[in-house]
């Protein structure tokens, strides 16, 4: 093994053995876990039961139909997103239209649609969410023909506990008593279910309006038309699959890469900087330098730093990929379409190129700061301007691209080598010309090479210095000194 690789291996092993590294490694999986847990637990409220005691016999079936229609609408909406994600034929027409949802139900609902859609072997299995409300029959010991008062007293114990449904025991959320004449009475267990109450009220109002219209001589068909009248609203959305996907991809993958690059470089660069300062303050560099050239030492450290960064990215990326393919929900909704952006053969090598150039560029800055500093306190004086000088413009650019994806700022920053990796990572998904890729890539390569040569001189000259860190003039002289 060459001396460079020996240095790289030692630095890599030392960093990955630290507690700080292990904590860093766990940040993204923990965050993903929290998001997945949060979204799944928030999006899936438990199914609750409701009872309709319909003395008039006119509304129970209507409420049940409306509850089912709304549930199937949600299933159709989710299924449409699923079809969109796996590039399958749509499961039905617009899910906002009652008639379309009725057709969806008539054609076998989710099961029927999935048979028609034929998901490919690699696609995740579609699992419709459980319905929010399930109707149960009025318990035998609850009278329905002795008035609302008797019904209310008898149903009270059931509202305080769970009730047996076809899906097992569920909380009884709402009990409705509909007399043949007079106002509808409703009892709840006091834990929300406002959606169901509004739905019942809406259906009851509809029924009353229809009765009133009929009493005023309006035909049933005309009354129905009046009731179903809605103001026309035209909504324009990005076209399915094209614009919408691109927008997601442009926002998520490049921004995630920029954040990964920033976090990876800053965290591991910080660890490496601490390592160099430790080597200097422990006075062990002299023994190492008797065996290893300063340039070999610097290269080895950069390779070690790169390996640490790769490990972090592999673990973070692996976790994100795992979350994308194995978990449904918000995380998968964003990550899965993002992966489709990597279909161009040149995209991945370019992403890697810009990512590593950025990593090396920042890593060299950190190593040099370490070689100039006698303590972390010394290092802070250099770190602050360097970190802010990189971080603030990049954050500004990220903000800008979120608000205006075709803005001029990323384009300008692509040509400033220190920001090129960030700007190009952000822009790669949105169609950058080959000339621009070639030009900025070459400029970046020249800059990184020059940085390696010039900062390498500073690194060599500063390693064994024990005095105060050099001022700007002395620093520039060190960069230009050949030996």
């Amino acid at each position, binding site marked *: 093994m060459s001396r460079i690789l*020996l240095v790289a291996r*030692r630095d890599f092993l030392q960093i990955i053995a630290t507690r700080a590294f292990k904590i860093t490694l766990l940040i993204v999986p923990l965050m993903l876990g929290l998001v997945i847990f949060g979204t799944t637990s928030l999006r899936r409220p438990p199914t609750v039961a409701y009872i309709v005691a319909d003395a008039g016999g006119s509304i129970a079936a209507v409420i049940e139909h409306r509850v089912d229609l709304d549930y199937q609408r949600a299933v159709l909406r989710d299924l449409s997103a699923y079809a969109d994600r796996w590039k399958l034929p749509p499961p039905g027409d617009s899910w906002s239209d009652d008639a379309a949802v009725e057709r969806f139900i008539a054609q076998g609902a989710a099961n029927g649609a999935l048979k028609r859609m034929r998901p490919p072997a690699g696609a995740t299995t579609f699992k419709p969410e459980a319905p929010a409300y399930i109707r149960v029959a009025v318990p035998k010991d609850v009278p329905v023909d002795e008035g609302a008062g008797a019904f209310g007293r008898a149903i009270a114990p059931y509202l305080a506990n769970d009730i047996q449904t076809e899906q097992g025991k569920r909380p009884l959320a709402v009990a409705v008593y509909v007399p043949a004449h007079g106002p509808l009475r409703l009892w709840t267990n006091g834990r929300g279910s406002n959606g169901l109450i509004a739905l019942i009220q809406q259906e009851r109002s509809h029924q009353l309006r229809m009765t009133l219209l009929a009493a005023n001589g309006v035909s049933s068909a005309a009354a129905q038309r009046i009731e179903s009248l809605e103001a026309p609203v035209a909504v324009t959305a990005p076209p399915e699959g094209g614009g919408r996907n691109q927008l997601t991809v442009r926002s998520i993958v490049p921004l995630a890469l920029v954040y990964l690059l920033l976090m990876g470089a800053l965290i591991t660069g910080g660890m490496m900087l601490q390592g160099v300062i430790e080597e200097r303050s422990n006075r*062990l560099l002299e*023994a190492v330098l008797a*065996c*290893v050239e300063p340039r070999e030492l610097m290269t080895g450290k950069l390779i070690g730093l790169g390996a640490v960064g790769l490990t972090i990215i592999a673990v973070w990326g692996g976790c994100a990929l795992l979350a994308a393919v194995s978990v449904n929900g918000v995380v998968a909704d964003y990550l899965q379409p993002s992966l489709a952006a990597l279909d161009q053969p040149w995209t991945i090598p370019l992403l890697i190129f810009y990512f590593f150039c950025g990593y090396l560029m920042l890593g060299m800055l950190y190593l040099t700061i370490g070689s100039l500093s006698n303590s972390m306190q010394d290092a802070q004086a250099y770190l602050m301007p360097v970190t802010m000088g990189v971080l603030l413009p990049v954050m500004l650019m990220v903000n800008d691209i979120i608000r205006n994806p075709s803005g001029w700022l990323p384009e300008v920053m692509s040509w400033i080598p220190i920001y090129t990796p960030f700007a190009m990572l952000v822009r790669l998904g949105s169609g950058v010309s080959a000339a621009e890729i070639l030009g900025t890539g070459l400029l970046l390569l020249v800059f990184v090479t020059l940085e390696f040569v010039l900062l390498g001189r500073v690194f060599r000259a500063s390693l064994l210095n024990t005095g105060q860190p050099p001022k700007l003039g002395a620093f520039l002289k060190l960069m230009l000194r050949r030996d």
Partner: protein
Amino acid sequence: MTALVLDGVVKRFGDFTAVDDLSFSVPDGGMFGFLGSNGAGKTTSIRMMLDILRPDSGRIEILGRAPSRANAPEVGFLPEERGLYRLMTVTDTVVYFGRLKGMSGADAGRAAARLIERLGLGAWAGTALDKLSKGMSQKVQLATALVNGPRLLILDEPFSGLDPVNQGVLEEIVLEMVKGGATVIFSTHVMQHAERLSDRLLLLARGRKVFEGTQAEARALLPPRLSLTAMADPARLPGVLRAAAVGKPQAGWQQWDVTLAPGQDAGSLLQHCTADGFLLRGFELHRPSLHDVFLHLVGGA
């Protein structure tokens, strides 16, 4: 063959000349003392021998080659400022340095195990260095210098910070290496160490060489001194440069501190006293120490 040659070497840091036209050579085998007070240029010279620093002018040859890391497999180096990677174990540290010096993993492992045992660190072989005492850490550092079985061992102030027991261990190991044919160069500002160990020595002051040679040659630079107890003043004897009375005479016998003229021999003086009937009751020759020579040559430098 010479282990080391420096020829007209100059090293400046800005306006300060740390090493000024230094020329000397160290023959193969034996112990060579590199003496000088703090700031005399010893560490700078050693760093140039190891290519850690480059001279501004002059030529250096180490084991017949220019200084470079290519010499590392045959060179051992113990720096004055000592430190190790705190989180590495004793074995890993020694093996790491062995490998940096071009040894295979297996060879470095075997050599490290042998040295660790030899230095009494066997029980701590798997312990991280931040859990060891300072003395133990210094032994580990010594092991990193010796792991490759060097032909040339360069020790910069090797005894500083070591307790007398560990100084003894270090001396023993170094002498073993010399017996095995290695060349050892060690810098020190403690003359007793140089006196005890070095065959040849070099004295540096303000970056310049003030002496190079054997211990006997160094001592010969100072006029011999005698303590005489005599009835008469020895100043009139041939070859005596100075004679100063020490204390008061007792029953006519006076003690004298006598300095001979350069090149004069104490034996000839004794012979003359005997032949001439110069009454003596005491005749004691004081051999000048390296410390005396150092002070004589360097003075307040």
